[in-house]
């Protein structure tokens, strides 16, 4: 039985069936079918992951196998990193499907159809073995995501958020496709392994650099790397909570996976001699993204927008990790993605519960209205501590592995950026928890206008005296998953082994083109040193401190403190003003970002 295609076929068939009988099927039946399809997909992906443990699984559709190193056929090439990401996506989709069971009053299950198509697109992207198949699945998941973001089409925010999302990401896809076309023109190949072999024969020239810059920019738009990130907060703030689970947990990470996959499988040999320069560019851009995302995150009042900017900050952190271009860095990133993705998806689920119970999304307006929600409050605070990477949570393990990789490459300063990002994002979430569930903090003088309150209307009307199990069970499981990732025995070793296979171009190429897949040798990750525990506890304490300061700080007495506060808030306001919500601005930033990134790659790689 061929598992790889089946993992996609199940959700696609279920989606097609649901769409076909949409108006004749009972809502409860649609709910069950969706959850079962997503769960079946999860099981298939987990079996695939087990298979990939004994070497990259390659599936040639229609039996078009490569001959003499030439691959005409279309393939799935599944290694452990790809399969693990697929499992993670499928788990999040299952949680989202469960969460959406009681979500909307509408009878027709179009939300379910979109969720399943979105899932299939993401899975195909994780498993694809050639760049054009990656592009097609990338587009499939993007279109489903645009529709999910704009699902509440009668709300003005949803329309604007979805438009910004769709236009910026589609231009990103055009850049990606142009890069694929140039790569094909140079190498005559679309298969990643074959491109890698063709590019390995000579050092990179201008055309290869331009092609890589186009491909990387296309993926980085999805990964929301500054200055491509503007669409993300607009889209996440308006999307339905079930969609947010997938958006915040995995979608942007897939963009980064695309960069890593194309770099390590296809371009790494051509850029071998310029690795140090490329590393500097990627880590620099990642650090900028982490700082911008974290600073924007603490300034938000809209809870979903807050989590959206936390996503931006963490995408910066993950780009720093991927940018080390080493197996250790990729392994740390993978563990961090697992811990952070579970935490953010769980937090989005908590926000969904708050919306359901309290009819609000603005932190200031919700002040004290969540006092009765003790369970949700505990989960929310735990999520904040997860973002602040308290030991021994999954985020802590990821951060520690990432720190070791950065020190090995001589980028110790980037650890400070990661700590800053985790402190600020954790503080924002803890502050919101204190205000919403504890009623702490001063009563706001000017509660924000109701312009973003529209998002509240997404939850069905009627009494919500208690939280339905379909809402709190996924939230509990997701947060627990984020905690458990840190203490799961053998996770770090498995991640390191998988990352070594992921970064090994020759091994990937042999598995795909010659069918010579070998099991990766067992790897042993070193356990976190004592000072990492110190940093972890310290950053969690700092996050608590910053949150307390935001809630309880008295008005500044001294003139200097007041002036400092004014300067800080003016800088923050300036940064916020750049996020104008205008499509034209966003696309101009995108073009400027592409030009800058292309220029930096040109300097670094030739």
């Amino acid at each position: 039985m061929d598992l790889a295609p089946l993992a996609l076929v199940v959700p696609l068939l279920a989606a097609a069936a649901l769409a076909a009988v949409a108006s004749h099927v009972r809502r409860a039946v649609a709910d069950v079918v969706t959850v079962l399809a997503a769960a079946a997909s999860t099981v298939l992906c987990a079996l695939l992951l087990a298979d990939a443990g004994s070497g990259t699984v390659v599936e040639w559709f229609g039996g078009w196998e490569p001959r003499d190193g030439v691959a005409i056929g279309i393939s799935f090439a599944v290694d452990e990193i790809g399969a693990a990401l697929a499992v993670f996506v499928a788990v999040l989709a299952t949680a989202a499907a469960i969460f959406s069971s009681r979500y909307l009053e509408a009878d027709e299950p179009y939300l379910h159809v979109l969720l399943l198509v979105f899932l299939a697109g993401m899975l195909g992207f994780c498993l694809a073995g050639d760049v054009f198949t990656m592009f097609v699945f990338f587009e499939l998941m993007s279109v489903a995501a645009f529709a999910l973001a704009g699902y509440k089409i009668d709300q003005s925010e949803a329309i604007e958020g979805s438009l910004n999302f769709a236009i910026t990401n589609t231009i990103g896809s055009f850049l990606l496709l142009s890069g694929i076309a140039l790569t094909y023109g140079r190498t005559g190949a679309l298969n990643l392994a074959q491109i890698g072999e063709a590019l390995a024969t000579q050092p990179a020239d201008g055309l290869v650099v331009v092609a890589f810059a186009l491909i990387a920019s296309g993926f980085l738009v999805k990964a929301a790397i500054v200055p491509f990130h503007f669409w993300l907060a607009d889209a996440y703030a308006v999307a339905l909570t079930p969609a947010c689970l997938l958006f915040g947990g995995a979608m942007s990470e897939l963009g980064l996976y695309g960069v890593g996959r194309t770099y390590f499988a296809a371009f790494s040999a051509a850029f071998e001699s310029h690795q140090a320069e490329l590393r500097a560019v990627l880590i620099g851009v990642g650090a900028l993204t982490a700082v911008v995302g974290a600073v924007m995150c603490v300034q938000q009042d809209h809870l979903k927008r807050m989590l959206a900017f936390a996503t931006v900050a963490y995408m910066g952190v993950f780009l720093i990790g991927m940018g080390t271009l080493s197996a250790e860095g990729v392994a740390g990133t993978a563990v961090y993605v697992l811990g952070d993705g579970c935490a953010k998806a769980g937090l989005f689920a908590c926000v969904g519960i708050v919306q359901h119970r309290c009819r609000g999304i603005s932190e200031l307006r919700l002040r004290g209205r969540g006092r009765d929600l003790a369970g949700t409050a505990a989960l929310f605070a735990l999520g904040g501590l997860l973002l602040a990477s308290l030991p021994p949570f999954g985020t802590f393990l990821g951060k520690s592995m990432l720190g070791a990789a950065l020190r090995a490459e001589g980028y110790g300063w980037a650890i400070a950026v990661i700590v800053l990002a985790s402190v600020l994002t954790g503080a924002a979430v803890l502050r919101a928890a204190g205000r919403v569930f504890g009623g702490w903090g001063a009563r706001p003088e000017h509660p924000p206008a109701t312009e973003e309150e529209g998002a509240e209307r997404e939850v069905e009307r009627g009494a919500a005296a208690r939280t339905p199990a379909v809402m709190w069970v996924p939230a509990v499981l997701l947060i627990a998953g984020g905690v458990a990732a840190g203490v799961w025995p053998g996770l770090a070793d498995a991640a390191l082994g998988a990352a070594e296979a992921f970064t090994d171009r020759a091994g990937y190429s042999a598995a795909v083109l010659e069918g010579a897949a070998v099991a990766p040798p067992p790897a042993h990750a070193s356990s976190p040193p004592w000072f990492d525990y110190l940093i972890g506890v310290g950053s969690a304490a700092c996050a608590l401190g910053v949150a307390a300061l935001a809630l309880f700080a008295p008005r500044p007495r001294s003139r200097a403190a007041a002036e400092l506060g004014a300067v800080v808030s003016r800088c923050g306001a300036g940064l916020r003003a750049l996020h104008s919500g205008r499509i034209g601005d966003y696309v101009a930033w995108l073009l400027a970002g592409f030009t800058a990134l292309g220029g930096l790659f040109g300097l670094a790689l030739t």
Partner: protein
Amino acid sequence: MTALAYGVAAWLLVVGIAGVVTSRNLIHLVVCMSVVQASTYVLLLGIGYRSGAKAPVFADIPTGTRVVDPVVQALTLTDVVVEATVIALLLAIAVQAHKRFGTLDPDRLGAIRG
């Protein structure tokens, strides 16, 4: 010939994105998107073009005849299908925006800030 195709592709990309940036009308903006998209068609077909070659259908020409690259044509067709979906979705959102806001000017939608 090939240099001209690449020049046209680059021009379409730049002029299309300039149109998107400056557009004051959502329908116009979506058409600009399809101009950007057209640049990918020209680029793909330009890469596979061989002067003096025939269409890659060997039903009525002897094997070994010089033909253009069929792979890029398949890619272009797929690209057309994929992007048609996106354009259709964008137009649907634009129609909805007009219903909801009474305007097609993207600058006057303005629900989201900061």
